[in-house]
């Protein structure tokens, strides 16, 4: 009887333990799902936001035939880059565009007639707009409600096309913030590409050296060195880049500022090296000894064997390492933030300041008010990063599964 109870208790503990393990095992999956949920739900909010800054509207004269303005057009109008309605394809008797912001009202209307609580502002603004058919006004929503008689433009929401096709990232612009991700995506690609071009020859050379040539003694030095390189915090790389590499680039290329895409590429290359080396080395080492020996027995020397047997055999593993290295470079935040100069312009050469997706998030999230369009735009950038890493992982998985088939 007692024995039976003991067994029951034992069984119970065993089951409990197994349940606990199962729960722990599923934690990572749950976290991924949560990340997707939170990132996307915060990010998608931006496509429900109005083009114009929250709480404001754009208004024109009642007879103005203009129907729709893109955020870019609005920005150019208020930056006085577009000065006539013709440029917007609108025919109107007063062709020149005049701007009306709240501060401008005293220029058109005696200040002392504005009520203290500003309750008559809707009427005043209507009157000014009526007198100036070519005027465009940027006013708080409240003044365009009761007593307002002119036309409020319905500009709609920020849309996908403007977001992913926009060439300007200027999230704090007034009256219409610009959320075009092209310069940032381009910046990320440029910097990562540069990093891989630098890291690739070094990474593969070290991997081959370490796997095929190095004596045990050298290997014993090389391995901890690579481990240490991987362990140094990215902010320390950034600091080193800022103090050593940035001035160096400025001097060598005779630039005004040394904070350039190239500085980012160099720092990222150093940071991506450990990933490339470790994975490529593992791949090289997995080449069956028999294959190498067969090659040597046929009269090929060591170099020919490496070139014609070992590398082709392990090429998928090497590719996986390189792809993962690219992934690291794309996602790296602090080092890039500190050395690339963070100008959100489409780069033409690597010697210009650029800005990457992670750096943009890190630099701007602190200043973006929670729940605003800017805040949500940064979450969309986070989604883009997440999707990129997912794709990179799938590619690596595909490459290594192909490799397994080959071995089988």
């Amino acid at each position, binding site marked *: 009887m007692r024995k039976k109870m003991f067994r029951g208790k034992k069984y119970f503990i*065993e089951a409990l*333990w197994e349940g606990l*393990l*199962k729960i*722990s*095992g*599923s*934690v*990572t*999956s749950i*976290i*991924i799902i949560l*990340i997707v949920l*939170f*990132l996307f739900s*915060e990010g998608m909010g931006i496509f429900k936001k109005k083009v114009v800054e929250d709480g404001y509207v754009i208004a024109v004269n009642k007879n103005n035939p203009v129907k729709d303005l893109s955020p870019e057009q609005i920005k150019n109008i208020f930056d006085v880059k577009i000065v006539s309605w013709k440029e917007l394809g609108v025919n109107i008797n007063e062709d020149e565009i005049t701007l009306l912001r709240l501060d401008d009202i005293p220029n058109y209307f005696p200040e002392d007639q504005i009520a203290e609580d500003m309750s008559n502002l809707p009427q005043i603004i209507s009157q000014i707009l009526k007198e100036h058919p070519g005027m465009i006004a940027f006013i708080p929503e409240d003044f365009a409600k009761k007593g307002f008689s002119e036309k409020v433009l319905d500009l709609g929401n920020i849309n996908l096309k403007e977001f992913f096709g926009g060439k300007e990232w200027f999230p704090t612009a007034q009256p219409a913030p610009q959320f075009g991700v092209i310069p940032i995506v381009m910046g990320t690609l440029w910097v990562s590409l540069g990093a891989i071009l630098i890291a690739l020859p*070094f990474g593969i*050379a*070290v991997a081959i050296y*370490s796997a095929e*040539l*190095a004596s045990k003694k050298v290997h014993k030095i*090389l391995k*901890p*060195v690579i*481990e*240490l390189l991987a*362990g*140094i*915090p*990215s*902010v*320390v790389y*950034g*600091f*080193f880049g*800022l*103090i*050593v590499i940035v001035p160096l680039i400025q001097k060598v290329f005779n630039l005004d500022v040394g904070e350039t895409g190239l500085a980012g590429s160099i720092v990222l290359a*150093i940071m991506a090296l450990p990933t490339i080396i470790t994975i490529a080395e593992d791949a090289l080492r997995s080449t069956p000894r028999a294959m190498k020996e067969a090659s040597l027995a046929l009269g090929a*020397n*060591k*170099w*020919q064997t490496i*070139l014609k047997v070992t590398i082709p055999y392990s090429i998928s593993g090497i590719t996986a390492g390189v792809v*993962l290295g690219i*992934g690291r470079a794309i*996602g790296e*935040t*602090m080092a890039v933030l500190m050395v690339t100069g963070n100008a959100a312009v489409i780069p033409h050469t690597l010697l210009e300041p650029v800005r990457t997706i*992670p750096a943009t*998030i*890190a630099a701007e*999230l602190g200043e973006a008010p929670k729940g605003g369009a800017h805040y949500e735009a940064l*979450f969309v950038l*986070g989604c883009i990063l*997440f999707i990129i*890493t*997912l794709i990179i*992982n799938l590619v690596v998985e595909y490459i290594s599964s192909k490799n397994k088939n080959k071995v089988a």
Partner: protein
Amino acid sequence: MDYNKRKKLNQASAFWIFRIMSLAVIAILFWILGFIIVNGFQAISWDFLTKMPEDGMTKGGIYPAIIGTLCLTAGSMIFAFPIGVLSGIYLNEYAGKGWIVRFIRMMTNNLGSIPSIVFGLFGMSLFVNTLDFGDSIIAGSLTLGLLALPVVIRTTEEALKQIDNSYRTGSLALGATKLQTIVKVVLPMAFPNIITGLILSVGRVSGETAPIMFTAVAYFLPMLPSSIFDQVMALPYHLYVISTSGTDIEASRTMAYGTAFVLIMIVLILNLIANALRRYFSNKVKTN
């Protein structure tokens, strides 16, 4: 003969290129380490390690940042270590080879390669805003814990994989249950490798900046945290701030060198400990 000569020459030149490039990589590491250690060592003093920052962070010490990093790292490990080890045990000992395991492993890999800034975004959205922890040690620790989790899982799995199956079957044959086998046989043997992995992941976590930027750290705090819901300063963020946007960047240069030195030292020492442990345990196994 000519062909043979060329063959030899090709090999020699290729190998020399590899040697030089490998040397260059080692040189780069020592350049970075040397640069920071030489410059940073001058900034280090007892006061630097135990005093509050003064004069807009151009003088004084980095004591609150050290304490903050300690809190955040410890917090993240309290969260990541148990779950990670249990998860690793599940994957290696219980899960078998079905699609569930493949899925979980894929998810773990994915989690491991998500950029740290995305963790920062997620931590801010979930812990700081939704759960309303505010910028606090707990929010930062949890975010860092998520980042460390895949590392701990992978290390545990690797460590368990190295245990020969005969130990498990032997234990089971003697009448032990699966749980007893794992707790009394498998885990003690895998323990050294798990611990080394853990130490290395502590090094990784303590240097992370992006995940804590929006979940835990403050630009400047003249006091120590009193509860887990307080904001803290942290070493990596402190280094970032005083080297890019401090009140007087030139004047705080020494402070920056010193902070970088401390950060590097943490990583170096943890790496040394991990290597020493690895060697110690492997010798022990051999003599047994």
